[in-house]
């Protein structure tokens, strides 16, 4: 009798569960956080993040979910924005409408700013780790946006400031003619002038249609400036440096300021050409035990590459975002991008890539910036052993002071 009763209970429970199954899978979809990695996978910035940025995001997801059942699933989708603002904005709109909760990466400042507007309009979270324009936390700051990595102000302060201090008091800029180049030239000009230096001129070249820089280098040389500021990035920087060496500029005492340069750029140039260059990054794989540890964990995913500050920022940012989601619940974080970002700002950050840090009111993530010098070939003892640390700017001093950005989120 009792057996029958037990059987009955089991049957009724089973019957109760059956119609719930489809409902549960719908609930599962609502219980999945979708992260869209949007970056350059086919153009001049591919090697800086591109496929490696995707791998770093996936590593963060793996480490986060490995820590036990968090109560929700995470899905990563990816796309190539081809460095075109219209492509990026359309893709962002489509993704957010289809239930993507966070867009991350987005190099190329013109695209970065376009996606910034879409995220604000849709009230969805957006973490930019790839664009450099300081306007993302300045005039165009948004409550849905976190700017995770380097910006033009921080680069200008670290590299530009150091070069002026070392006697490079007259400058000529070779600038990529779009939002990023303009912002980098503007911010560096400020530091050069503040330190008593002069800017003798600049050329703006078409991006991304330029591969021969010799004409601009020659114009820079004839201005008799002591420093040529390269307000560009990726393959453009590589070609500029290579051709400056070809035309013997460095041998004639001209200094090159590669204002935004990454480890893969140095790798592509080779130490023979790149030696002695001074550059700024916020991450170097061989900086300390924690950076070495995270690099080692990432290595199987990156194959023969090493992470740089842009690609590994995806790791750090994804981890922090997921912690915020876990903290406030999936439903609440899907409902409002502003709320997730507010929660991210309220929580302290800490990870192996950048150490302890925090996100400021205007959306700026704070981390130290490091001034490196590229080693001479004979100083390099192992593959990817490229940098010597020259100076460290602490997190709180590395970026533009909160009050100076003109961000509307900052209440005085």
């Amino acid at each position, binding site marked *: 009798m009792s057996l029958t009763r037990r059987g009955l209970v089991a049957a009724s429970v089973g019957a109760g569960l059956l119609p719930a199954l489809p409902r549960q899978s719908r609930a599962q979809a609502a219980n999945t956080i979708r992260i869209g990695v949007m970056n350059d996978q*086919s153009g001049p910035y591919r090697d800086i993040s591109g496929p490696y940025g995707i791998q770093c995001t996936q590593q963060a997801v793996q480490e986060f979910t490995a820590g036990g059942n968090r109560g929700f699933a995470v899905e990563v989708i990816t796309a190539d924005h081809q460095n075109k603002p219209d492509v990026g904005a359309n893709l962002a709109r489509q993704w957010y409408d289809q239930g993507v909760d966070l867009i991350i990466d987005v190099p190329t400042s013109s695209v970065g700013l376009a996606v910034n507007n879409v995220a604000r309009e849709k009230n969805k979270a957006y973490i930019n780790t790839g664009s450099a324009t300081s306007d993302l936390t300045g005039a165009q700051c948004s409550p849905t946006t976190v700017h995770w990595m380097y910006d033009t102000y921080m680069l200008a302060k670290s590299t530009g400031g150091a070069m002026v201090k070392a006697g490079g008091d007259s400058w000529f800029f070779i600038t990529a003619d779009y939002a990023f180049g303009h912002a980098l030239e503007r911010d560096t000009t400020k530091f050069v002038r503040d330190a008593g230096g002069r800017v003798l001129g600049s050329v*703006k070249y078409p991006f991304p249609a330029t591969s*021969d820089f010799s004409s*601009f280098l020659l*114009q820079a040389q*004839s201005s008799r400036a002591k420093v040529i500021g390269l307000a560009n990035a990726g*393959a453009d920087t590589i070609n500029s440096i290579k*051709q400056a060496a*070809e035309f*013997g500029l460095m041998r004639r005492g001209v200094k090159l300021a590669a204002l935004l340069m990454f480890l893969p750029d140095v790798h592509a140039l080779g130490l023979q050409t790149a030696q002695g260059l001074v550059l700024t990054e916020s991450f170097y794989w061989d900086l300390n035990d924690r950076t070495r540890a995270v690099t080692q964990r990432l290595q199987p995913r990156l194959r023969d590459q090493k992470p740089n500050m842009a690609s590994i920022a995806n790791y750090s940012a994804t981890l922090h975002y997921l912690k915020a989601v876990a903290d406030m619940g999936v439903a609440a974080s899907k409902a409002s991008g502003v709320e997730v970002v507010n929660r991210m700002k309220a929580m302290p950050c800490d990870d192996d890539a950048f150490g302890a840090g925090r996100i400021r009111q205007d959306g700026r993530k704070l981390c130290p910036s490091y001034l490196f010098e590229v080693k001479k070939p004979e100083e390099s003892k192992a593959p990817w052993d490229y940098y010597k640390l020259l100076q460290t700017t602490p997190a709180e001093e590395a970026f533009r002071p909160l009050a100076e950005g003109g961000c509307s989120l900052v209440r005085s």
Partner: protein
Amino acid sequence: MDDLFGIPAPLLFGQLLLGLINGAFYAMLSLGLAVIFGLLNIVNMAHGAQFMMGAFAAWMLLNWLGIGYWAALLLAPIIVGITGIILEKAFISRLYKLDHLYGLLLTFGLALIIEGVFRNEFGSSGLPYRIPAELSGAWDLGFMFMPVYRGWVVIAALILCLATWLIIEKTRLGAYLRAATENAALVQAFGVNVPRMVTLTYGFGVALAAVGGVLAAPIYSVNPQMGSNLIIVVFAVVVIGGMGSILGSILTGFALGIVEGLTKVFWPEASATVIFVIMAIVLLARPAGLFGRA
């Protein structure tokens, strides 16, 4: 006499020379395109990718087999030319009876695939390729510092262009080629194997692109998108010079290099656009191009 149009004279001379060097690349590439279009009636959109393959072939020869620059200058075009011949046999030869557009789409698709494969394999930052020791160093011309290698590029391009022009205009083989362009059936009736000639011509055009690639390897970093940056400009050069005109594409290539070089001084932002403005004007005034026959 130090300033010309508000620009210091030394700077202006330097820019003219640099323009000439870039013009050498335009001339070499548009030459290959003109040869292919003239005989095959194919708008070879894969030309930029084949230019890039030339540079990569040189890099692979050096790094995988230890074969240096001078041998690569000969071997890389042969290797890339053979891949061109395979492409022609396998795909392009099926399209001769169809509209131009089909050939254009096919070769454009091939270009995207080839570039994609190289990008997957080698990344986008590029690979270093050193200037050969014999050509490193520079001359001080007084008004500028002229790398020896760039001088060599101009000379090599001139020799190559002149040789191609002579072969096509002055030899018996060239006469066959030109005759086949006019009337393939008649030439075949005289016992000339026209399909084979067409295949070899495509291979030759592709090899020309590959020579350009080898010459470019030490100047630009060897990267998968190096050709796509150039190819659109080169098409404009061909259109301005007149589709299929050999001499037209050579002269226009050098001339537009110089125009572009000067634009980089007077209005750098427009340097990528100026060639297309000229193209629009030429098309309005002379739709067949400067040297083309309507």
